[in-house]
């Protein structure tokens, strides 16, 4: 009985979250499509044609998986951060807090919503990429598993950010000062093998390197770090961030007085 109630509650949160980003699609789906198209035109067609090969592939083909992953990361994170913070700000998060919804359902509902937006944007970007290059698929399962797990990691990150945020400024600080630099330095635009050994080591402290590497492997069969290591790192992040998110929601940090 309780399982059925939890399932309906989870579907309600998911429904609400998906409806939210679909209702404001001009703000949520169009901008990443435009941004990524510009990346394809500038870095792929204009500059990329002068770069030549990267990792044995032409530059445009090489950066496509990274750019898809970049849009998945940004959108899954910002979806949960802005939606959950907005629910806190308008106090409609109380609708869930007064209801018999277990905390894991709240976390799963918001993370599911963030994953849905991240992956939908990823799909849109993939379709746009098909206008610029031929998309190769080396292993579809690696692609699907990596994109799902990465979207989950950053949805959890967005949720934690929203719990601590006290203003709308607070939900843009992490994407601007942490996510963007880590993504740019995460092997989206270059192969780690181009870096000196020391900087290759430093780069491996960046979790996005593992996600981009696994995702690129799914498309091209090319990887900067082994697939096993990538999945272990992503798994550790999911478990850790989920534990943090659950603790915060259970204690009512920023939610209950």
């Amino acid at each position, binding site marked *: 009985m309780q399982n059925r109630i939890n399932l309906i509650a989870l579907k309600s949160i998911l429904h*609400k979250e998906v409806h939210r980003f679909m209702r404001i699609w001009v703000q949520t789906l169009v901008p990443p499509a435009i941004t990524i198209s510009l990346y394809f035109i500038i870095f792929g067609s204009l500059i990329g044609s002068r770069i030549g090969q990267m990792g044995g592939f032409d530059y445009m083909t090489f950066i496509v998986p990274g750019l898809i992953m970049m849009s998945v990361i940004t959108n899954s994170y910002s979806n949960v951060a802005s939606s959950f913070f*907005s629910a806190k700000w308008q*106090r409609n998060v109380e609708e869930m807090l007064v*209801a018999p919804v*277990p905390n894991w359902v709240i976390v799963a509902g918001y993370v599911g919503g963030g994953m849905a937006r991240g992956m939908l944007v990823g799909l849109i970007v993939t379709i746009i990429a098909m206008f610029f290059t031929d998309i190769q698929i080396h292993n579809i399962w690696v692609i699907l598993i990596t994109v799902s797990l990465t979207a989950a990691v950053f949805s959890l990150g967005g949720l934690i950010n929203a719990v601590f945020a006290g203003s709308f400024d607070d939900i843009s600080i992490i994407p601007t000062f942490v996510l963007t630099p880590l993504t740019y330095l995460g092997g989206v635009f270059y192969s780690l093998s181009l870096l000196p050994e020391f900087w290759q080591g430093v780069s491996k402290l960046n979790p996005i390197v593992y996600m981009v590497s696994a995702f690129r492997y799914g498309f091209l069969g090319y990887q900067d770090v082994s697939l096993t290591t990538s999945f272990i790192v992503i798994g550790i992040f999911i478990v850790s961030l989920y534990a943090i998110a659950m603790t915060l929601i259970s204690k009512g940090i920023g939610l*209950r*007085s």
Partner: protein
Amino acid sequence: MQPALEITGLEKIYKGGFKALKGIDLQVNQGDFFALLGPNGAGKSTTIGVITSLVNKTAGNVKVFGHSIDNELEAAKSHIGLVPQEFNFNQFESLTRILVNQAGYYGVPRDLAHERAEKYLKQLDLWEKRDDAARMLSGGMKRRLMIARALMHQPKMLILDEPTAGVDIELRRSMWEFLTQINEQGITIILTTHYLEEAEMLCRHIAIIDSGEIVQNTSMKALLATLDIETFVLDIGQKPDSLSLAVTHRLLDEHTLEVEVSKSESLNGVFAQLSEQGVEVKSMRNKSNRLEELFVRLVNNNDGAK
């Protein structure tokens, strides 16, 4: 019969050391229409916050229909419908979506939730606005939307924190009628309000909370019976040159006289004395609501006792 709500020794100390609740005990019986009154900052909303798990308690026990919020929180929550003081819905969502999603959080399937949404939106005169964003509603409509939302999972107990604040009198009366109807259907209602007339008219039991303590907890009838003096305001034709009455009185202006009459005295006697002195009484009204007089007295006594 098991009480709808049982609170024992409830304490709440906020960060910074402010003691909002100082060990309150309270019981609300099933089917009751219960008023929880108190001045601003007395602890009413904190009490409601603890019952509905929006505020973490410091000490004490709360049971809702026998379910403790400490170890059966989800069962306890499923019996409560909350109409909070502040608007707390997504202003950009449509009314129907707000109601259907809320029902979903309580495990109500979507088809059934749509049926209930239609029922309550119609009952509360919001059906025409069902597809509008909530921010487009007037203040009174927003209050009614929150009542509809609180009823979507058909709770056994409805808690309303100042539901008629800022609502015009006509609308307030229609809300009273609606609340009376649902109480008659067996739903226990706990109401906080600053309109004491509202509490007197609707509620059968009352608790007055002041500075985190319950200073009165009794039936409305018993409380009103303790009021031994009533103040009347008389509109008089003309001011007498001199006036002598056996009861305490004051001339407020040339045409307004205020008299205090105790239960042992008769209004006939006051009228007779006025008539003898040639004072014509054109109309008469209570100076204030009876409950209001008691409320002020109880709160003042509590303040004096500190």
